[in-house]
């Protein structure tokens, strides 16, 4: 855990809590580009991977690192579907419903996942394990239908396979 003083909030002490590994990745990213700001989106992705979503404190902290205002960072991140401002389940599922998956029965995958989770898309299951959202084409068209769980692909799905995936993840906990 570390406490850092943010450029734009000189009076606030913000508890950001990134692992040393993530901090190291931030430093590395900031060194890669001719302009710091280019590191913004990759840094937010890394922060999100560690914390599950983008917290207010993270925005302030990262804004300081790339020398932007927090509101600019907020505006930019709202453009990108993968960046989220609310917590999700431990296993966050993208369900592709775009054309190629639709042709191969993504309707049934969608309803299977909703039924197995017992919550609608966008909601987190009570145990905190799962959440799912509808997603645009994931680039798995010849192995459709597909979903990703925390960005790992599961392809050539049918109802049975989808049920098994959820069961297996639930077992894993």
């Amino acid at each position, binding site marked *: 855990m570390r406490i850092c003083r943010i450029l734009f909030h000189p009076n606030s002490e913000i508890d950001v809590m990134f692992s040393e590994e993530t901090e190291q990745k931030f430093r590395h990213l900031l060194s890669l580009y001719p302009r710091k700001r280019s590191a913004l989106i990759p840094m937010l992705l890394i922060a999100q991977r560690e914390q599950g979503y983008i917290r207010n404190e993270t925005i302030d902290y990262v804004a300081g690192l790339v020398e932007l205002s927090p509101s600019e960072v907020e505006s930019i991140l709202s453009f990108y579907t993968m960046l989220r401002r609310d917590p999700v389940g431990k296993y966050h599922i993208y369900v592709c419903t775009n054309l190629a998956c639709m*042709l191969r029965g993504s309707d049934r995958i969608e309803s299977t996942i909703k039924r197995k989770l017992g919550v609608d898309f966008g909601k987190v299951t009570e145990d905190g394990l799962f959440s799912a959202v509808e997603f645009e084409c994931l680039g798995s068209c010849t192995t459709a239908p597909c979903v990703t769980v925390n960005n790992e692909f599961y392809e050539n799905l049918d109802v049975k396979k989808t049920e098994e995936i959820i069961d297996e993840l639930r077992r894993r906990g």
Partner: protein
Amino acid sequence: MYETVLFKNIADPRVRAIDRYAELGGYRAAEMVVKERTPAEVIETTKATGLRGRGGAGFPTGLKWSFVPKDTGKPTYLCCNADESEPGTCKDRVIMERDPHQLIEGIIIASFAVDCHLAFIYIRGEFWYAYRVLEKALGEARAKGFLGKKIFGSNFDLDIVLHSGAGAYICGEETGLIESLEGKRGHPRQKPPFPAVQGLYGCPTVVNNVETLANLPHIFNRGAEWFKSIGSNPKNTGPKLYCMSGHLNKPAVVERELGIPLPELIYDICGGIPGGKKLKGVIPGGSSVPILTADEIDVRMDFDSLAAKGTLLGSAGCMVLDETVCMVRFAMRTARFYAEETCGQCSQCREGTWWMEQVLHRIEHGHGKMSDLDMILDMCSNMKGVTICVLSDACAMPVEAMINKFRAEFEYHITNKTCMVGAHAHA
């Protein structure tokens, strides 16, 4: 017999390791180019191959490079477009996951041609596995001295930064990509100035697709004449990856010559339509291109043959639809994608894609009016050629073609408040 080029080694899991890739002849072309050729020679050879961009627009690659001004005092950047988000497209992912060094070698050759010392791979954030494969491969290439200072012991310096996007189709458009890489919203820029003159950080920039770049090692190993000998004619040359999806017995990413007849892809290579069903139509180049009806599929899969048929090769994301597909629902889902993905800068696109989806939605759900069809067609013509980038056109073109070619089905839906085909798009 077609001789596989781009996919020659993808069945070999070991080829992801640099030693195996090198053992199979990898990095020889890049080393030869940086040590023995001048950038002008590399551009000339590439021009002579007739290679056209595989990202969608089919622009001649050598010509694009030749637009980069020299001696501006500014650095030149190369961006490899690995955003691959056009619905129906999944070919670049295969190259990156299975043969990453082929892409890295291509980037080295292209960077040398345009005197670029810092290149970027902009990869869509959803491709987390491909990201890790590439990250490892880049590390190996650096360790070998194939990237970094004085690569291959030459005088040429090059590093490659792997940059992850975060979910936005528009960041595949080259100026949207550049804005995003600068750490902004992916809002496309007005052209001109073209990126070749004023791109990333205001500097000359070349944006090339993954598959385009993957061709380069082969070109410099085997020569322009060899490359030109593949394909349907001198303007449509080289190997091509086709993403064959939808209602097929054997959907797959297939490599064949540019310009293979479409029926051969569907019936001979991908095993035809499952369950003895009839073909309804084919979207040959990703969701943005006009559909071909079953009667129109006798065409070669190349840039000019498809253009002559009123459609486009695009990203070669070829989706095959059988007779059970409801064209109204298909059009609605198409429009919804663009309504989701419009960046919102231009009103014709922001409002047009949204309204298009709304009107198609109401037809699909039995609340449509007959006048809706002409209204949509009218909207389509008002959405084309009027915006900063062509996302707006990419929504209008396919929807327009679906209504024009399957109008009776839309009318049936409006009159009978139900589907003509009786079933929704189930496999």
